[in-house]
């Protein structure tokens, strides 16, 4: 019975594999974007959903993945996969370096520190000649939307399988224990430092890969787009909307929000900008555990439910 979502997911993935043969160019643009955003939301979920560390610094890893790929391909004419590896190495090293000091902070302090970090990283990169300073880098142009699509889909599947494994493993139990009460987790034998850093590194790994694929696909990057803080806000909202700390919540959340956003952007573009703000307010008030609240049959309204949600979100 518990395997039902996995069966559905398998069918959906098999169907998605064949999308490039039927979709229009515009559809493909949207699909690749949506898949990569879903990867970002799912990667964020490892740290924010399971471990309870709300990160606004994942765009740092995204930017490093982007720049790793761009520098390798534009400056050294190396193949795409070398660029991906370089981006991942940069992001993972960065996660290890910042993880030790920054994961000692908790709650809002952690969120603020990560926010500062992504701003700082953007400033650093825009002063590095090897990264094209603040002008950016142009990557070799390819028309291979099918490849980018299948790569993104593959990455999303691997990322989701990782999260599925986490959700039923000892490692995942440790992460959730940290989320629920870090001090108690420590006295019960969870090596909190190692667990948190591993979660951060995993999150950085998938985020950087998504950045690398996006860079080659878009073929032009600059600091403003690579270290875009609103991208990070979108990851958070998509994961929180879908259900943080669940396997499929962030996927469902990101697909739904991507679709609505795309629709609004093409019809009323000012409303699109409002969307994510509205979603976060409504999600926090009415469904603190995301869409999982609705599916799980937890239906309650009125002031008591409202207050309970506010407590659970620690507002």
């Amino acid at each position, binding site marked *: 019975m518990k395997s039902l979502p996995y069966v559905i997911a398998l069918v959906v993935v098999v169907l998605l594999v064949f999308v490039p043969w039927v979709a229009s160019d515009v559809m493909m643009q949207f699909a690749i974007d949506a898949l990569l955003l879903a990867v970002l939301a799912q990667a964020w979920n490892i740290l924010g959903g399971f471990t309870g560390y709300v990160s606004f610094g994942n765009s740092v890893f995204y930017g490093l993945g982007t720049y790793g790929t761009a520098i390798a391909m534009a400056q050294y004419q190396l193949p795409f996969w070398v660029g991906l590896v370089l981006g991942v190495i940069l992001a993972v090293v960065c996660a290890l370096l910042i993880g030790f000091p920054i994961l000692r902070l908790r709650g809002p302090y952690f969120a603020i520190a990560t926010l500062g970090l992504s701003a700082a990283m953007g400033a650093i990169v825009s002063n590095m000649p090897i990264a094209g300073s603040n002008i950016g880098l142009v990557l070799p142009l390819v028309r291979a939307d099918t490849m980018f699509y299948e790569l993104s889909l593959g990455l999303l599947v691997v990322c989701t399988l990782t999260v599925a494994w986490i959700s*039923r*493993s*000892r490692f995942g*139990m*440790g992460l*959730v*224990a940290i*989320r*629920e*009460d870090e*001090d*108690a*987790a*420590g*006295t*019960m*034998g*969870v*090596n*909190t430092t190692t667990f948190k850093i591993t979660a951060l590194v995993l999150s950085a790994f998938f985020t950087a890969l998504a950045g690398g694929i996006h860079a080659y696909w878009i073929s032009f990057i600059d600091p403003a787009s690579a270290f875009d803080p609103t991208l990070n806000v979108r990851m958070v909202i998509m994961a929180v909307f879908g259900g943080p700390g669940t396997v499929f919540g962030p996927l469902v959340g990101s697909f739904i929000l991507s679709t609505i956003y795309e629709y609004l952007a093409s019809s009323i573009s000012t409303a699109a900008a409002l969307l994510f703000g509205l979603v976060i307010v409504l999600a926090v008030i009415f469904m603190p555990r995301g869409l999982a609240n609705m599916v799980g049959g937890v239906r309650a309204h009125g002031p008591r439910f409202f207050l309970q949600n506010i407590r659970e979100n620690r507002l």
Partner: protein
Amino acid sequence: MNAAADTAGGTPILRAESVTKRFSGLVSVDQVSFEMRKNEILGLIGPNGAGKTTLVNMISGTLRPNEGALYFEGQPIDALAPYKRAHLGICRTFQVMKPFPGMSVLENVTVGALFGRDGGETAMAKARESARDWLDFTGLSHRIDARADSLGGPDRKRLEFAKALAMGPKLLLLDEVMAGLNSVEVEEVIELIKKMRERGVTILVIEHVIKAIRSLSDRVLVLHHGQKIAEGDPAAVLEDPQVVEAYLGRRRH
């Protein structure tokens, strides 16, 4: 019986050597030394603010002593992080219960089984099974799927016990587990603690319920203003004029 335990004990399971903890001027624990023998129940009593919980915090690792040293099975433990002490088999409950609120009762206990002594059980299925066993043992198996934060007082205590036991402790530190329970529930908890001891666990009990201390403890240690003022046989210690004075104040003439 005490004399026999003294000679047969070998290395004490826990030894504190003039342990001191200061909080910017306030001396919470002042040069306290004591030993615990394997499989004994030591009652730790004293008025509020005597430093009992601070002492437990230093043993479990959330605080470090300013002076003195703690030895577990002969090894110094002061430099070890709390999780490493849990791996050694030191395990505690909290005065303010700390269940993982968003997890089910079973998951709470499974965490104990997964991460306890020697790093815990690595296989999820086995850990879950042992968690079920401990929930049976503590009489909480009927609430196995409930969310931990939906439990009432006595069930929370049971959960706290089950979590601690699932860790496979050698030394269990119980910080006021009977506070807020009625006398029937206190009896149940006393029985539970006795059952744990039968399984070979060494237990430190902090308690204000003197009846429980009297019926459980092999020895009693009394703290007052951070200092050890008495130690030994429960009946004798509870009659000690210094102890009576600490609890009730000086008798007027």
